[in-house]
């Protein structure tokens, strides 16, 4: 009974169920909500990276037209500690005079209009005592943290293997800081009603915001309601309770009115974290025919003074290829910088760039086709434990991708494929993505008319959760997709996990699966109490469901509709709660494998200008069971665009003297535009994964991973220039 009954509903390219709202401007994002009597907030940020505030003059701001309140550390409410959720959350703002990074919030101004609030914020005068800031990861004074998560890994004897290896690659690969930059300006609209608080808030995890805000303001969790039915993207930016959120809550309490605090684009660069830069040291040992004998991968990433971050860049080297000797170590260094934070494929994106570049270098060193070397070193089993994978179609990704791309047309000689003034290069990269899942819950309800609705506190950040969960519930309950209504993005609903780590579909999907199974069981039990029911005395195992009816397997005439069962028993609806927790690798005797993928890229390099153009991309991915091909393809397309950005454009530049982010606008921080993106062929391979009951693997992030090394590897093929730092710029190509 708990199998998926209507496979035709799954996999099909069902249109996004929230699509009509989004193409008509009717989907209400947090900053679209306007409440009666609402006031507007504007923040003031520090203009030094380290030190303390010695004087603040708010007189002019307070007298400025329309101003209702100015809050600084001198009159801020004392707030409680922010609890760590999956990782740490920033401690409450405005609690002391200390400055830890350039751009830290030091005041908030509330006024009757946004214009008045913004103007008054500019009138606050601040004097500082400056301390020397530490901004360079190589600064010897900076605190270094070794093995930050206790996950450093080693097996075999890497030292000896490297010493004895006939072929060795020993290189350093670096990636720049990137900023998530979801297009939606993160906004908190805080509204108090006595001792209860409602937040319309941009985030990826409403229950996390609820928990952290409740703790900071000393409220019971139930007194805080967080509403996020729609959010203008996240890419990881919404996975912590950032400081503007308690600022808005505090401001609303001060003025006794709802307060909307909408970050500006420059504030989005300092207030929501960013992808850490990374330095990756890689040593590969191999036989003359290209078989890996040793991988040593060390990384260094950055941290703010008072935060944490989980960014294990080296971990990709422990599961991507078979090697008898592996060492993977990570270090972090604390700097006076805004928080580093998750951004689409944290750690994996940077580590994969390093590993897949190094593997490519090894291929050239031993004279092997870059595709062949990846197939040669394919990890048939988890190289760390020797356990089988829950599923792993990396080999198939590489083979299918090569065929679709026409890899066999590649002339292996460097610079041999020319088209006019452009040098053509083919690049490939493999991707093995991490696995991640957290507990989640959902409630599924069938109404008297036979339709259903599904509730969970999780939010859909644009990945398609509304749609695929409606499909899944419809499939499990024997309904049509349009008979299932989704209610998400409200912390008062059944507790949900984060829309992050590519983990939501498995977590929520398994909870919906559990709830639907329990609900059908309830219907069968109910029918069993009715001696006139055609289903009386039919055991649960023998019941199937289709077209809103339960019936005996093999005898569709012997059944009863869900609506009729409810009517017979005088019920208006019937519901069931579902929960999911990740399975245990030990119990199942297998290693859960995240998504797998292969990237094939044709780059064209202008010989005279060094301009790099991506001409076409083939991306093949193993995402386990695909619930909706149309939306899954979009996830991969979007990741691919992010990967092109990481490879060629994105670089958050910090001024090394002041710690100021120097390019914190969309005019200066470049992301791909439509004309930068060529034809992208997306394809899925693989089978339903064995690690969760619905067989899915998360695919929200993997699309980004591998694009950058495939481009870099293609540039090497075209030009003979091996570029080991991202983003790849024209000057490096010309150098």
């Amino acid at each position, binding site marked *: 009974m708990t199998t998926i009954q209507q496979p035709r509903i799954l996999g099909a390219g069902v249109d996004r169920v929230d699509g009509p*709202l989004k193409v008509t401007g009717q989907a209400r994002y947090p900053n679209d909500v306007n409440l009666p009597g609402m006031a507007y907030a504007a923040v003031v940020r520090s203009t030094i990276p380290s030190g303390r505030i010695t004087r603040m003059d708010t007189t002019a701001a307070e007298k400025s037209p329309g101003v209702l309140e100015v809050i600084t550390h001198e009159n801020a409410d004392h707030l409680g500690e922010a609890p760590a959720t999956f990782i740490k959350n920033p401690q409450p703002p405005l609690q002391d005079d200390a400055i830890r990074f350039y751009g830290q919030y030091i005041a908030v101004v509330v006024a009757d209009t946004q214009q008045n609030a913004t103007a008054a914020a500019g009138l606050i005068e601040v004097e500082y005592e400056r301390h020397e800031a530490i901004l360079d990861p190589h600064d010897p004074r900076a605190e270094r943290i070794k093995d930050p998560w206790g996950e450093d890994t080693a097996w075999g004897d890497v030292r000896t293997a490297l010493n004895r290896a006939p072929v060795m690659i020993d290189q350093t690969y670096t990636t720049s800081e990137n900023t998530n930059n979801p*297009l939606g300006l993160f906004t908190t609209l805080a509204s108090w009603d006595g001792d209860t608080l409602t937040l319309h808030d941009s985030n990826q995890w409403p229950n996390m915001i609820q928990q952290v805000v409740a703790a900071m303001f000393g409220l019971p969790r139930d007194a805080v309601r967080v509403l996020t039915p729609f959010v203008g993207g996240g890419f990881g930016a919404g996975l912590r309770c950032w400081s503007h959120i308690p600022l808005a809550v505090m401001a609303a309490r001060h003025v006794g009115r709802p307060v909307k605090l909408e970050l500006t*684009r420059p504030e989005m660069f300092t207030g929501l974290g960013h992808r850490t830069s990374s330095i990756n040291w890689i040593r590969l040992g191999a036989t003359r025919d290209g078989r890996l004998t040793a991988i040593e991968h060390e990384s260094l990433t950055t941290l703010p003074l008072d935060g944490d971050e989980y960014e294990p860049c080296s971990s990709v080297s422990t599961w991507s290829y078979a090697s008898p000797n592996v060492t993977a170590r990570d270090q972090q260094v604390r700097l006076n910088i805004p928080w580093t934070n998750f951004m689409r494929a944290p750690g994996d994106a940077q580590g994969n760039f390093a590993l897949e570049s190094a593997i490519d270098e090894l291929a050239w060193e031993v004279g092997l086709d870059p595709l062949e070397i990846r197939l040669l070193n394919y990890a048939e089993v988890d190289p760390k434990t020797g356990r089988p994978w829950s599923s792993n179609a990396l080999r198939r990704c590489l083979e299918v991708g090569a065929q679709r791309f026409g890899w066999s047309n590649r002339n292996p000689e460097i610079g041999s494929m020319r088209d006019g003034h452009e040098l053509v290069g083919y690049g490939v990269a493999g991707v093995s993505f991490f696995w991640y899942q957290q507990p989640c819950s959902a409630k599924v309800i069938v109404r008297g008319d036979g339709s259903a609705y599904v509730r969970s506190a999780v939010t859909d950040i644009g990945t398609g959760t509304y749609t695929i969960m409606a499909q899944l519930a419809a499939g499990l309950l024997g309904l049509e997709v349009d008979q299932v209504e989704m209610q998400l993005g409200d912390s008062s609903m059944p507790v949900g996990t984060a829309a992050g780590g590519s983990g939501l579909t498995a977590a929520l999907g398994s909870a919906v699966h559990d709830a639907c199974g329990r609900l059908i069981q309830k219907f069968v039990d109910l029918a069993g109490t009715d001696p006139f029911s055609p289903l009386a005395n039919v055991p649960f195992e023998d019941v199937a469901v289709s077209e809103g009816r339960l019936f005996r397997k093999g005898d569709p005439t012997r059944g009863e509709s869900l609506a009729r069962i409810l009517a017979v028993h005088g019920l208006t609806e019937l519901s069931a709660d579902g929960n999911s927790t990740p399975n245990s690798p030990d119990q199942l005797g297998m290693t859960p494998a995240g998504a797998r993928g292969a990237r094939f890229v044709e780059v064209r390099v202008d010989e005279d200008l060094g301009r790099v153009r991506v001409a076409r991309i083939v991306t093949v991915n193993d995402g386990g069971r695909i619930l909706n091909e149309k939306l899954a393809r979009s996830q991969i397309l979007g990741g691919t665009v*992010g990967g092109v950005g990481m490879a060629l454009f994105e670089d958050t530049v910090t001024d090394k003297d002041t710690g100021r982010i120097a390019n914190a606008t969309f005019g200066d921080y470049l992301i791909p*535009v*439509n004309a930068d*993106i060529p034809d992208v062929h997306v394809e899925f391979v693989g089978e339903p994964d064995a690690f969760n009951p619905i067989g899915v693997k998360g695919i929200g992030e993997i699309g980004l991973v591998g694009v950058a090394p495939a481009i870099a590897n293609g540039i090497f093929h075209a030009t003979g220039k091996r570029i080991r730092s991202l983003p790849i710029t024209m000057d490096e190509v010309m150098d």
Partner: protein
Amino acid sequence: MTTLTVNGTEYPLDLADPRVTLLDALRDRLDLTGTKKGCDQGACGACTVLCDGRRILACLTLAAQCDGREITTIEGLESHPLQDAFVRHDAFQCGYCTSGQIMSAVALLGENRAGTDADIREYMSGNLCRCGAYSNIVAAVREVARHA
């Protein structure tokens, strides 16, 4: 009093504060929040609306400049084929840039600049999509342009 004409309706507006942009007037004063703010600096295109049929950035336009002009926002489209095409081609994910993309595409069709994929890509490049739906946006615009 300034009069803003938006989607055929006249809205008298007290613009004692001349700093109010068209974007803020639409969103904060008229509660027409379909037009989005992504940068407020004229760099992302999320606030694209039509002014007398031409696409403009509402964040770089003062509301007071629009006295006597016809503004069309996403709420003013009446089942435009692009809206349907955007849904079928999955030309968005989070949906935040979508109003601006569609308004730009509506103007693009009027400008006869949707003849080739290269043209569509070029002339839609003022509208950023961080979710990366560009290929599907091109497919949606191409389909409507071919059937126009």
